[in-house]
């Protein structure tokens, strides 16, 4: 095959907030940057983030990055790395100002400063009164940020490869990242993008669960590429269920709705969060609220004919607040439920939402993995940022408003460190045919003709399996059974076949390649969840209900080879302040 090769200083896979923020920095510094995205960039899932981005600007109430750091460490159930969390909370402030300068249309206060709202788990004075820390553009903050970053990248002349699917990473014999084999979706032609540095910024994998808030494109492509390249994934058992997805459908109802004063009620109209989190109530952290909702329903206090959801009440806020501060939520309710949330409560249920785990990185977004000299050696030239990465600032549970922050801060950090790397490594390294073989073989596998199961059937079964065997509450027997089923399903993927082998914009072929990725990240999630015999953050075990700091205050690492699970220590030492020791987590 006559493969075309293109050469860039930096290859960025994924055009969400992390990828675009890295690209902006590099393109502005006149590096040759290629951004590969399987969808047009403004269709990346960052666009769907609603509620806001945290930064201790103190525009509404007194605030301090150190308080933000405490909340994040506590929210992580003490599994977050405190050096990374300190970095994120400090950098939050200049990052939000930078975005505002770039054009993000933040909502404003009367004095012209950025509007900030209350969000779950955010406090003043290390666990005191509720903070107002979440900077918002109505409830379209992700849209506002993603479009602004794309626009600034147009200005900086970033080179975009739109609707191009990354098949696999390329690495040489010494493990140095050399770029990726990609597939132009419109033509079906493979292409080699050789780069001195590669940043994986492909986002999450919520599509592995049947009911999720994630877009169709969120299939864990970057994470699975890392696994296939021999890099482990970290903390994959920590998958967040957002407390308020639209019941039975999954669309996200932002935590900002509760930040503006909305609250949850059960079938008897009781404001039940008071029982589970007497102080923070509906603004306790997401793992706490999600568990509380599921508990209410399990104990028979669910709403509706099937008693299978609870209600989110906003009508007491008045039509003006609801329509001005939450216009996107009004749209979703009108279109999908035929109701106006300013008049009637919204049926909600916890919905698969966000991966705390991912490709292990350090604070500079460099990918790190255990090697000869310790658990965190750099994979040269390889970076990861955003939801596909685990830096780890979210630990066992992510606080609302910290995901946009994570992608922006560490996307930028990636750009910064890539500049440094490029100044030290100015030349392309040689790429030989043998480095391309595994990636080409992966493409060729779906060329096989003949009978076999269709991809969509296997994918539907996978999503059901993950929902049934790895949900909000977990136990050994259910998950062990899940692993057995997933092993069987992996065999089915081997014999699955494409019926349509055409080249021009073959979406079926892309979905087949995505299925490979989903199965890999699904196994990483189930295997690590089964191994962790404690309850921490989003990982809630019925058979091990307590957090076990003696045995389990450590990160998990999953390798694809042999489905192996190992552990590495949590970095409990921050950079400049005292560390926050583990404490019982009450809200």
């Amino acid at each position, binding site marked *: 095959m006559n493969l075309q090769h293109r050469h860039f200083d930096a290859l960025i896979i994924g055009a969400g907030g992390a990828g675009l923020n890295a690209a902006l920095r590099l393109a502005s510094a006149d590096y040759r940057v290629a951004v590969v995205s399987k*969808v047009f960039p403004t*269709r990346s899932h960052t666009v769907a983030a609603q509620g806001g981005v945290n930064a201790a600007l103190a525009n509404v109430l007194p605030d301090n990055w150190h308080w933000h750091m405490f909340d994040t460490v506590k929210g992580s159930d003490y599994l977050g790395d405190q050096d990374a969390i300190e970095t994120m909370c400090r950098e939050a402030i200049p990052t939000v100002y930078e975005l505002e*300068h770039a*054009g993000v249309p933040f909502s404003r206060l009367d004095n012209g400063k950025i509007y900030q709202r209350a969000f779950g788990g955010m406090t003043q004075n290390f666990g005191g009164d509720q903070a107002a820390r979440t900077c918002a553009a109505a409830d379209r903050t992700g849209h506002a940020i993603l479009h602004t970053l794309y626009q600034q990248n147009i*200005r900086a002349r970033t080179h975009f490869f739109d609707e191009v699917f990354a098949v696999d990473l390329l690495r040489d014999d010494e493990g140095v990242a050399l770029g990726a084999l990609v597939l132009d979706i419109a033509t079906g032609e493979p292409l080699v993008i050789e780069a001195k540095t590669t940043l994986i910024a492909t986002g999450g994998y919520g599509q592995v669960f049947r009911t999720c808030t994630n*877009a169709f494109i969120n299939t864990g492509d970057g994470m699975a590429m890392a696994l296939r390249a021999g890099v482990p994934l970290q903390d994959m058992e920590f998958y967040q269920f957002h407390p308020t997805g639209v019941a039975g459908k999954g669309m996200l109802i932002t935590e900002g709705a509760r930040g503006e004063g909305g609250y949850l009620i059960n079938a008897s109209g009781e404001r039940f969060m008071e029982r589970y989190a007497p102080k923070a109530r509906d603004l306790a952290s997401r793992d706490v609220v999600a568990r509380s909702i599921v508990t209410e329903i399990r104990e028979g206090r669910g709403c509706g004919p099937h008693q299978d959801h609870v209600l989110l009440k906003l009508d007491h806020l008045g039509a003006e607040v609801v329509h001005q501060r939450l216009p996107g939520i009004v749209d979703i309710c009108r279109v999908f439920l035929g109701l106006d949330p300013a008049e009637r409560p919204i049926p909600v249920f916890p919905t698969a939402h966000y991966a705390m785990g991912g490709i292990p990185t350090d604070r500079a977004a460099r990918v790190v993995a255990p090697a000869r000299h310790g658990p965190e050696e750099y994979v040269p030239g390889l970076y990861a940022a955003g939801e596909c990465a685990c830096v780890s600032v979210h630990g066992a549970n992510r606080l609302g408003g910290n995901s946009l922050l994570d992608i922006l801060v560490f996307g930028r950090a990636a750009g910064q460190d890539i500049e440094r790397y490029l100044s030290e490594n100015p030349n392309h390294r040689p790429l030989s045919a043998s480095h391309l073989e595994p990636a080409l073989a992966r493409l060729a596998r779906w060329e096989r003709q003949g009978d076999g199961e*269709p991809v969509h059937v296997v994918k539907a079964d996978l999503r059901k399996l993950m929902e049934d065997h790895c949900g909000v509450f977990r136990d050994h027997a259910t998950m062990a059974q899940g692993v057995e089923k997933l092993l069987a399903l992996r065999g089915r993927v081997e014999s699955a076949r494409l*019926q349509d082998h055409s080249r021009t914009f073959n979406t*079926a072929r892309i979905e087949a390649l995505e299925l490979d990725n989903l199965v890999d990240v699904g196994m990483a999630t189930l295997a690590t969840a089964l191994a962790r015999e404690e309850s921490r953050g989003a990982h809630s075990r019925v058979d091990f209900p307590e957090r076990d700091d003696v045995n389990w205050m450590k990160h998990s690492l999953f390798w694809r080879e042999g489905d192996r699970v190992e552990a590495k220590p949590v970095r409990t030492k921050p950079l400049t302040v005292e560390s926050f020791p583990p404490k019982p987590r009450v809200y």
Partner: protein
Amino acid sequence: MKIRVYRFNPERDTKPRMQSFEVAARPGMMLREALLEIHALDESFGFRHSCGEGVCGSDGMNVNGVNCLACVTALADLKEPVEVRPLPGRPVIRDLIVDMSQFYEQYRAVKPYLIRTEPLPEQEIPQPPAERDRLDGLYECILCGCCSTACPSFWWNPSKFHGPAALLQAWRFLADSRDQATDERLDALEGPYKLFRCHSIMNCVEVCPKGLNPTKAIGKIKELMLEKAV
């Protein structure tokens, strides 16, 4: 429910055809879900889609003669048989997938980014709520292309007329009290085509899935040009 979809695969077909499928409609079902079921029946049927809730703008298409997003179009609201075609006026790549490159080119042509000439403050650039409110109805555009591909002026002069989506963005930055490139932006829109080919046909307003009003934005640009000229 009977759904007729537009089919064209350049590797196989010399001309497009319509193909009928029968889909069992469920209460609350959206068109996108029906198209996914069709895709499951025949995986060679291609269309773009992603978020499923009207924020990513991937699944713009022409349904019963009207441009819309499949994910927020309820089947129950559609007249049978449902006729699903690609967005009009764009080259078809395959089935419902059209080539949007010219649309994006027009978007880039209006310099859709904030331009500041003064040095930046250490904190945010202050913007009172009344000034910020002017951006409501402008910044929410998701670039789905429903408006521009419904605009006859855009069909006739796609390389010269910027089209409603791009012009909405032009006004979004002109209206932003933080932007300092007003003259430059207005000068770039001079001439008979880029802006003035808009004849206020209002198709864009009718089809915008986000309820935005590009015609009004275009009117505002014209007003501002007039003010400047006086």
